Every structure is written in structure tokens, then in C-alpha cells.
């Protein structure tokens, strides 16, 4: 089993920062269950899938991995995995705002820059929610994909959007005027 220290060593060997999103992608490929740890089975699974048996090959496989993850069909899976990966406690269902903001930036920041920045801003200023659950997490991704930004012309609060997004849109509209 590789522990957090070991992962850090791995990262420096691959010349990738341990907070880089590609490490998360690697964890996803391995289907790693516990944040900060890779068990042998997971390690083997991941490397086999990437067809890498040396650190160098692993490093070279990273761009390919990135491309794979970014494909729309696989991204949803990765996105929801990212959330689950951060649930450290046994019965935990939600993640605190602070961590969510970081995770959002990491996972969606490059793809939906504007939305993510504003949403993070909103999350930090509002008081209604102290944590985010899976439903809200997934809802935000749908939001980024389906709703025109920054016009928000096709957003309908009477549909089944999570309430937090209704509030976010309201906040945005107030900001815009």
C-alpha cells in the first residue's frame, strides 16, 4: 500500500505537483477508494489500464489519461468520483464549503472558468449552506453544461434544479443589475 508520503514521492518522481488534477485522474483510473492511499490491487489496476510498468511510462501516459478523462462520456464519471473520493468518514455524505471550492476549481476550473469562479464566490458569501452533497455537486455540472452563461436565459427555477442553484442564479441576477 502506498500512503500519503509515498504518493508525494511518486508525484515528485513524475514531476507532477501532488495537488495537480492529474493525480486525481490517476486515482480515478485506479478506482482508488480511500483518499491519500493506493492499495496494491488499485495500483496494479491503474498501471495495467495505462499500460505502464515504469515511472517514466506512467509519466508519459498522463497526457493520454487527461484526454480520456476530458471526453464528455467519461468526464461525468470522473466528476462524480472526485466527490466520492473526498468523503473520508464512514457515513459522510457531504463536503464542507471550503473543500468543495478547491475541488471545483481543480476539476472544473479549466473547463468552465467563469461559472466556477462565480459559484465559488457565491458559496463563500452565502450562509444557507455549510456543506454540499452529491446531488448538488452533480447539479452544478449539469448547470455548467446546459445553461447559457452569463445570460442565464434558459434557467427555470420551477424545474427540478437543486435549490442552491436557484439561489445562486438569483444572486447572479442581483449582481448583474
Amino acid at each position: 500500500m502506498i500512503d500519503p508520503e509515498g504518493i508525494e514521492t511518486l508525484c515528485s518522481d513524475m514531476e507532477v505537483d501532488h495537488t495537480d488534477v492529474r493525480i486525481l485522474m490517476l486515482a480515478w483510473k485506479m478506482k482508488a477508494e480511500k483518499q491519500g492511499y493506493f492499495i496494491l490491487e488499485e495500483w496494479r489496476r491503474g498501471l495495467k489500464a495505462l499500460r505502464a510498468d515504469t515511472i517514466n511510462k506512467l509519466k508519459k501516459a498522463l497526457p493520454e489519461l487527461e484526454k480520456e478523462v476530458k471526453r464528455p462520456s467519461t468526464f461525468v464519471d470522473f466528476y462524480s468520483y472526485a466527490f466520492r473520493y473526498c468523503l473520508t468518514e464512514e457515513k459522510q455524505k457531504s463536503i464542507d464549503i471550503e473543500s468543495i471550492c478547491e475541488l471545483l476549481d481543480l476539476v472544473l476550473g479549466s473547463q468552465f472558468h467563469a461559472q466556477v469562479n462565480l459559484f465559488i464566490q457565491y458559496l463563500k458569501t452565502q450562509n444557507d449552506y455549510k456543506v454540499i452533497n452529491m446531488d448538488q455537486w452533480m447539479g452544478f455540472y449539469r448547470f455548467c453544461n446546459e445553461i447559457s452563461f452569463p445570460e442565464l436565459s434558459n434557467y427555470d427555477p420551477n424545474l427540478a434544479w437543486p435549490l442552491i442553484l436557484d439561489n445562486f442564479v438569483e444572486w447572479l441576477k442581483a449582481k448583474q443589475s
Partner: protein
Amino acid sequence: MSSQRKKNFQIEAFKHRVVVDPKYPEKTWKILEHAIHEIYNHNASGLSFEELYRNAYNMVLHKFGEKLYSGLVTTVTSHLSEISKSIEAAQGEVFLEELNRKWADHNKALQMIRDILMYMDRTFIPSTHKTPVHELGLNLWRDVVIHSSKTQTRLRDTLLELVYRERNGEVINRGLMRNVIKMLMDLGCSVYQEDFEQHFLEVSADFYRLESQQFIESCDCGDYLKKAERRLNEEMERVSHYLDTRSLDKITNVVEKEMIESHMHRLVHMENSGLVNMLVNDKYEDSGRMYNLFRRVPAGLSIVRDVMTSYIRDTGKQLVTDPERLRDPVDFVQRLLDLKDKYDQIISLAFGNDKTFQNALNSSFEYFINLNARSPEFISLFVDDKLRKGLRDVSEEDVEVVLDKVMMLFRYLQEKDVFEKYYKQHLAKRLLAGKTVSDDAERSLIVKLKTECGYQFTSKLEGMFTDMKTSQDTMHGFYASHGAELGDNPTLAVQVLTTGSWPTQPSATCNLPAEILGVCEKFRSYYLGTHTGRRLSWQTNMGTADLKATFGKGQKHELNVSTYQMCALMLFNNANRLSYKEIEQATEIPASDLKRCLQSLACVKGKNVLRKEPMSKEIAEDDAFFFNDKFTSKLYKVKIGTVVAQRESEPENQETRQRVEEDRKPQIEAAIVRIMKSRRTLDHNNIVAEVTKQLQARFLPNPVVIKKRIESLIEREFLERDKNDRKMYRYLA
């Protein structure tokens, strides 16, 4: 009789020719022609009907029907031409009379002629498809007399002139009119219509257009309507007297259009006399007239109804948002009831109990009653007032009337659950203070609420009544078994309240005075002895006590106080002066309650059994209290307890609101789960609609709150979002 065979009978034609006189037809015709002349010259008495008939008969028989017929046409036509000239020559008034007379003559003549020519009428005419004699006579009259160029227009103008004069108040010869009009009708439907009716309708329209314009400039609404009604009745009477009944609808339509429809809006909105004025001043006759007239025109009633509705809404809205009104809840509700009574009366007396108007009234009430969030509380306070004192000495039927009116207002409430909360609180106070005027009235109202809202709504309320009864029995049992040993102790009256049924109060600390601790403990052990597994906690904020007090000059009074007040007062048996802090420490009553309690004992004129230094209204931490030796009162029994239901202060109101909101959450969730369990999958909008429908008997759920509850249920894995259709939710078994 010979027994020979009978010979066959044979008929043979004449073997010789019958000689017919060639002059026969002409001769015969001349006889008939002469007869027609005589008839038209009023000389018919000298004629022999039988002879003439036979002559006509023979002509037809000998195949001279054609000659007979054409002769008839010619002769009658020439007579009618003369008649036409004489009519044309008639001057002035005489014209119509002459026409009428000649028409009567013609009819009589025609009858006689037809009788004479009956054989031809029945045989020759049908077989040759010619016009029958009578009809021929009418047609000739029509073509020669009526449609003569001079007469046609003159007739029309004369008739219309007469109508015009009659409309302006003159008396005309109605019999004559009737006869002439009937003549036109007899001449054929189209004659009546083309020669008279269509012109009649046209000039009537012009006439009424003009008149209505004049009226509307000079009359107020009520007068105008009276005039319009009069005109309408006039026209109806006119038709019944001398026009064709089929003209009735047509002429009334004209009047309705010109006098009513054209000016509808202006009439309804007329300042100082329009509908609103009529409503405000209960002008039943005028508004009734408006209803009856406007009913006749398209969209007439909707204008009346709409104006009434918006006025009621405005009045109601003003009532419920007026800050002055909101100070006195009982008055507030009474005004609402008065408003409803007023409009019930109007709708019944002036608007014929029209259902659409009733509905408009109901929806208006529903609209503005719910504009004020405190309406449920106020209605409960109104009921409380009635049941505590208002219905004393009122007959049973009148009590029912008042309660039914309250139910009527209750039905309009959207937030029935808020009413329930307050009603429970107020009922509890009434029951515990023993302050209800009539047990029957209380029960009656509960039954009405149950009928309206179902068993669930009232089951807890009924529980409260049961507790009261049970407690009575318990007390009997207590004193029966322990009465002797308790001789000297203060008399105790305990109501044991089942926690679920009564409005929840957080139990606060309070040290009961030593004098009663003994008997309280005895009761507790008695009760728990007979009811195992229960827990009793004294609700010190809801009790009362009667204290006998002796003051400076020996005056004795009985003080009726709350439990808190009792605790404070009893301390003064052992001390003349106590500071606020000392009282607080000894009684351990929560600060805000204690302050209120001391205020009511020391700062209220006529009830100041304690004296406070300094004399300020507010209670401060270092105030000092003294037993007020100098207290006086005209009454022996002095009531100082404050357990009466009152309008809540703002902070209390907020608190109740919050509790109501909290109570609603599980109800909403239960509704969502029920719906999803039966539907399995459903989209968001439909869930909101269904939930609203299910809960509307109790309150109107906020769609945002519903959404939040759905999300909470998703988190707790009762529901999930459909993976393919993002609008749908799915029930998780």
C-alpha cells in the same frame, strides 16, 4: 219476378249532340260580374246566393273556369284601383281610417265572392295550380292598394309618426293601429317586415340613441335606469297591444342596445351615483334595477360583477391592512362579519341571489382575509371573546348563528393550521381558567370544525375536554380518600393534562411556597399510585390561586392571582421588604416572567397589592418591593391573574410563526412521500401541484419549501433523480 237472367245494364253516351249556347259563358259571366260589382257597392242583399253559386258551378263544369278566373282577377283589380285612388285622396288623419274601413269592406266582399266561387276554388284552381280566391284577393289588395307608390310610403310614415307621437306622450288610436298592422300581417310575413317592421326598428334605434344620449348627460345613474326601464316596459306593452309578437325580441334588443349596452361603462362608473355609490348606501332598488337591466345585454352582468368585486376587494384590503383596526382583534373580525352581512344582503335583495355574484364575494373575501398574516389569530381571539363572555345570555339559536359565521370566515383562511394553533392555546386558557360561557357552545364549534376539517383536526381538542372531565373525577377520588387528613391544608384543584393534546409549553423553574408543597406532594403520590408509568410535571405558568389577604386597617380581600404571583406574594408573609433579586432567588421564576408578574402586582392602579420603590413602570434589578398596607378596593374579590387570551406581541408572533413553519415540514414531506409512493415517478411541477392540492385544506405550501423538502428526502435516500430525465424524481422503495 221472372226467373230470366238479368240483362246487363249499359250506359251509352248521348247519341245526339247537346247544343250549348255559345253565348252561354259570356252571359253567365256577366251575371257574376254584376254580382261582384254589387258586392263591392254594398248592395249584396239583393243577390241570390244559390243562383250565383249555380252559375259559377256551371261555368266551371262546362270548362269555362279560365274565363271565370281571369274575369274575377280583372273585376276585383278594377274595383281595388278605385279604392286605392280614394284612399290616396284621403287627407291627414282620415287616411288611415279610410284604409282601415276599405280593408274591412274588401275582406267582407272577398268572403262572399269566395263562397260564391267555392266550386272553382276547390276543383279548377287546384288542378291548374292557380292562386286560391282568398289569397288572390289579398295579393291584389297588396299589389294594387298597399304597394301603390303613393300609399306605400305614406302608410309607413303615418304608422311611424303615430309611434313617435305615442313615445312622446300623446295618446293615439291603438285600435286603429292594431287593425292596420294586422292587415299587414295578414298580407304576408314579408309585407309586415319590409313595409313596416324593419323601418320601425331603424327609427326606434335612432330615437333611443338620441334619447339615451340626452338622458346620460342630464341624469344620474339611478334616474337613468328608471327611465330606461320605463321605456323598455313601454315597448313591451306596445307590442302586446298592436304589433306582431315576433317583434318583441327585436324591439327590446334595440332598446337594450341603445339605452343600456352603449352606456354600460359610463353608468356603472358614474361618480356619486354609479354602482359603487349604490353598494355603499345599500340602495337595493336601484342596484336591483341595474342588475335586471344589465342582465339583458351581453357582458352586462360581468361589468356589474367586476366592479362590485374590485370594490369589495379594495374595501376588505383596507380593512385588514389598517393599523388602527389591527389593535383590536375582536373589532377587526366583527367588521369583517359586518362586511359579509352587508354584501350577502345586497346579493340577496338586489342581485337575485345570483350564484356568480356569491362566488365573486367569496373569492374576494378569501383574497383579502389572507392578506393579513394575523387573520387566523384574530379569528381565534374573536371566538375566544364570544365564548368567554360575548355569548352569555344569548339564546341557543343565536349562538349557532354566530358560530356558523365564524366557520364561514374560517373557510376562507388559507392557513388553517395557524388558526388551529391559536385556537388550541386560547381554548386551553379558557378551560383552565374555567372561563367558558357555555360548554355546549364550545362543543358545538368543535363539531363544526370536525365536519369541516376531519377528525384529525379536532381529536386533540376533544382530548382537552376529556382531560378536564377526568381531572374532576380524579380530584373527587383524591379528596374522598385523603380528605380527612388534609383538613387544614389549602384546597387543591388539579387538572392533569395529557401532554400531546395541550399546547406545549416548556416547563420553567418555580419554587412553590412551603404552604402548598405538602398537599401537592400528596396529590402526586396519590395520582402516581393509581397511574403507574406516568410522569407529572407542574405547569407553574398556567395555574391560578385564591389568596385571602388582610391589609393595614384590617380590610380583608380575596385575591385571585396566577401561580407565579402567588409564589411572590407568599414571600411577604415572612418579610416586609424584598428586593427584586431576593424574590428572584427565592422563587427561581424566569426573569421575563417574573418581571411581568411583579409589574401586574405593583404597577397597576387598583391592583397594587405590592408597593415598589422607585415607583417607575419598569422593573429594574435593584427595585425594592413592599407589601402595600394601604391597598383598597371596592370589591371583596380582586382579580389580578393574567391568564386571559390576548393578542400576541410581535416577538411572540414570530415565535409562533416559526413553530408553525417547523410543523409544516413533516407534513410536506409526508405528502411528498405519499404521492411518490403511489406514482413511482413524477416531474417537479406535478409534485408541487399535487402536494399543494393535498395540503390545501390546512395551508398553502411554499414551492421553495417543497423543493427543499424534496432535496432533503433525496439526501435521506427516499427519492432519487431520474438518471435520464432530469426533470423527474423517482421513488426509492
